[in-house]
């Protein structure tokens, strides 16, 4: 069972105090979008073995959503950051690159 640090309130808590929300940084496609774009938004989710970005909500705490960079194979957590961003912040990217030189980068 994971432990995560909520970047919104600073509390480090175990997984049961959070609620998972799937892949981070989804890009919404609305009524004018093409079938392909909408299909990708609605159904296609990355499921890598290795570096992954996820949505979590501090459900039993401050109630805020945040994002986490994590290795799905070793469960190492590279960092957590606020949800109000469309891509992982530079410091998190840098940390992952240091620890996983073979990682091809975000998207």
């Amino acid at each position, binding site marked *: *069972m*994971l*432990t995560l640090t909520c970047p919104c309130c600073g509390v480090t808590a*175990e997984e049961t105090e959070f609620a998972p*929300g799937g892949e981070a940084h989804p890009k*919404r*496609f*609305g*009524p004018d*979008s093409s*079938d392909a774009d*909408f299909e990708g*938004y*609605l159904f296609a989710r990355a499921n890598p073995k290795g570096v992954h970005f996820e*949505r979590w*909500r501090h*459900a039993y705490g401050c*109630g*805020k*959503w945040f994002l986490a960079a994590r*290795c799905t194979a*070793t*469960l*190492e*957590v590279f960092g957590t950051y606020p*949800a*109000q961003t469309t891509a992982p912040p530079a410091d998190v990217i840098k940390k992952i690159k240091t*620890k996983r030189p073979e990682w091809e980068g975000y998207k």
Partner: protein
Amino acid sequence: MSTRLSKGGRLIDRAKRLNFTFNGKPMQGYEGDTLASALLGAGQVMVGRSFKYHRPRGIIASGVEEPNALVGLGRNARFEPDQRTTTTELFEGAETRSQNHWPSLEYDIGEINDSFYKFLPAGFYYKTFMAPQAAWKHLFEPIIRKSAGLGAVPKEADPDRYEQAYAHCDVLVVGGGVAGLAAALREGRAGKRVWLIEQSAHWGGRTPVDGGQIDGFEACDWIKATLQELETMENVTLRTRLMAAGQHDHGYVIGLESVGDTRPGADIPRHRLWRIRAGRTITATGAIERPLAFAGNDVPGVMLASAVRDYVVNWAVSPGDRTVIVTNNDDAYRTALALLDAGLSVPAIVDAREATHGALPQEVKARGVRVLEGRGVARVLGRKQVKGVEICAQAGEGGAIETIECDCVAMSGGWSPVVHLWSHCGGKLIWDAAQAMFRPDPARPPLGADGTAMVQVVGAANGDLSLAAAMGSAGLGACSSDEAPMMPVWQMPAGAPPALRFKSFLDFQNDVKVSDVQLAAREGYESVEHTKRYTTLGMATDQGKLSNINGLAVLSDALGQPIPATGTTTFRPPYTPISLGAIAGEAKGALFQPLRRTPVQSWHEAQNAHWEPVGQWRRPYCYPQTGESHREAVNREITNTRANVGLLDASTLGKIVVKGPDAGRFLDMLYTNMMSTLPVGKCRYGLMCNENGFLMDDGVVARLSEDSWLCHTTSGGADHIHGWMEDWLQCEWWDWKVYTANLTEQFAQIAVVGPKARQLLEKLGGMDVSKETLPFMQWLEGSLGGFDARICRISFSGELSYEIAVPASQGLALWKKLVTEGKDLGVMPYGTEALHVMRAEKGFIMIGDETDGTVIPQDLGLNWAISKKKTDYLGKRAQQRPHMTDPNRWKLVGLETLDGSVIPDGSHAPADGYNANGQRNTQGRVTSTYYSPTIGKGIAMGLVLNGPDRMGEVIEFTGEGEAMIKARITDPVFFDKDGEKQNV
């Protein structure tokens, strides 16, 4: 025969005698005994029968690895099978029963299986499946069920208490032996927050029995001094009887503490499950001695060499007068010394090695014990008790050289480190050829949250078997040992013919022999995991603690590959079995799950309401009066509400306030219709879809002010919808200025419904609730009969209806007042079933009935509630997909049975022909179906192919059994189609 010695026993208190029974026979032991030491002390060598062959079995070990000596403990509701006698502490009045036999331990009919062992080889169970089906059902299954299985299952509810607790520490040290003590001391002195846990009741592990020097002190003195220092440290928590069951991700360790096992019936928890979150785990879990595989190694009286000296030293129990020691290493010679010190006889030590030059063998030889080098045991004589051993050349095929009389055999095949906690979460092992064991590979540890090692191993668990090596790995003293190398022995003698291999047990608990593993290899089970399942090697309650290494060594040999190439099976938690009660903890009975209560709940309870679960709420389904059936009560409640006035506790409805400059824009995205244009003071019904376009929730929205709205959600949907709103606000439209607050629990909400509803409210007074001041679909705030009320004129029944929200603290008082004041108006409460029937009579949909996660609002004829002006709302894009605009989607209609009966819930309407799977085609299904007392017959709603175009058509629905029910397709509004009743 085993017996109690007159002197010694470092763990027992001879002043405190304890009475217990074994198969009804009264016996005595001492405080400090385990069940096993007490049984042996009372002369009980044979304690059970084996699983498959029902062979007589005795105690082999002195710890958690014991495979045989499992008993049923306690009686009636407190009976528990498969209790390990070697780790169960004796207590006054303990009732124990042996297992796997009928009619008795001494005379067992199942023992006949042992004569047919050739017909019960590895995989025989699976092979029975290959016979004709009838043979399995009528022949094999009854026999297998009768003869197999460990103890019986208790049939009554467990009366004991269990609980859980969370602990946090920097360092968790598992194992209170000397290595664990040394590690805890080091970490404690470094100021770390340390937990040191030990599964038994005693500190020091094996060392008090085996002796030695630590840091210049006698081991026992060092242990005492170390404990004293640890106890003074405020940052160190010491805990015995706490077993670490599993090491999980991110430093999470589950532990089971025995709290009240020796005090059955006392008002204390029996077990406590600890959820420990540790920065690091140091495992000092020691090692387990391996048996040797020779014919008859399971005869009662054959024991592990270490266990023999444990019984002598710890509990003053002699396992036998004459003990032959069979070994491949120096360590077992300690058993000879312990036996000699206790005045017992050691006729011979049978050592598989050609030469024995170590210090321990020399010391034993000097005391006059015969050491037979290069020898093995060909077979054990005796059936229910060891009578002697036949000695042979280890290198040969088992030809007897001599026979030695004895009543105990102490065997040692070397030691296996307890690597479970290291392995549970991904730590890898390496093969140590010199000591013939797998030990943790420090280069490949389990990783924690930060990507670094979260588990370290010290002492024997690390493969540092000798005291000196163990203390060295724990960071104390030099690392050297004067013990001579051991010699791996996987079969004794090496060239044992089939007759011997058929009786050389590897896994005692599952009756798996050397011959079974070899057969599995011949039949193609090359993976160790497959062999495990096929032979059952390493399964059941002991999980192969004794058998695994021997088993995979035999498998490797049969496959002609080195042992590391075979590898181990997966180590999975728990380390030893843990009680289901502890896993449940407090979550049973009334605390099984949270039961949410409305402010009026106690009144409903006092009226003996019949309940319906709605999410975690329990809402009154109906309020049956004396002698009334539920259906009669529902009908009465409906009739009364339609004729007079009814009260519904609607407190469970979600109430979410949405406020801010962008709140209108936000709600326009959430709802399919337009909420931003709703005038202040008015209410509007709205639908919410998910991004798949499917209808998710509905409810009435009231505009409270220029920038705030109150959104009502379904009872089950409040938390979800609030979370849904916050998700979009936080993660997608974070620049929009909107705040939400879930006020569901702040308000009690009471629906006052029926033609006399206005009269009732007027009796309370204080607010003008006339049609002019408070028309349909508007709301008003004020003081109603002295209550701080917000009244919405909304209706889910088609009647004149007011939903009154007051602060929850005033809810019960308002309800009671309405009941009292409404008496002469005929007021009655009504439950959720009446609510459902009345809304169905009006053709109103219900989330969860008409919707199931695949239904879009357009299917339900709700196009009027979908804005055509809006360029976007959640779900709009999905509703443009071809499948969603398909004219052949099933659509909502009303259904009226021709004979007046009620269509069963879930009925389908079959259509002509069959689908690709050979099933009848269907053309519709029922979504809601009730008896309507208002109409006087069965009414239903359903989704039907081209339904709205087929008004008046009669189609058939499946009824009970083969019967079909004819129903006419109608408008879903059955009652008061023009809404005259609610609009008064």
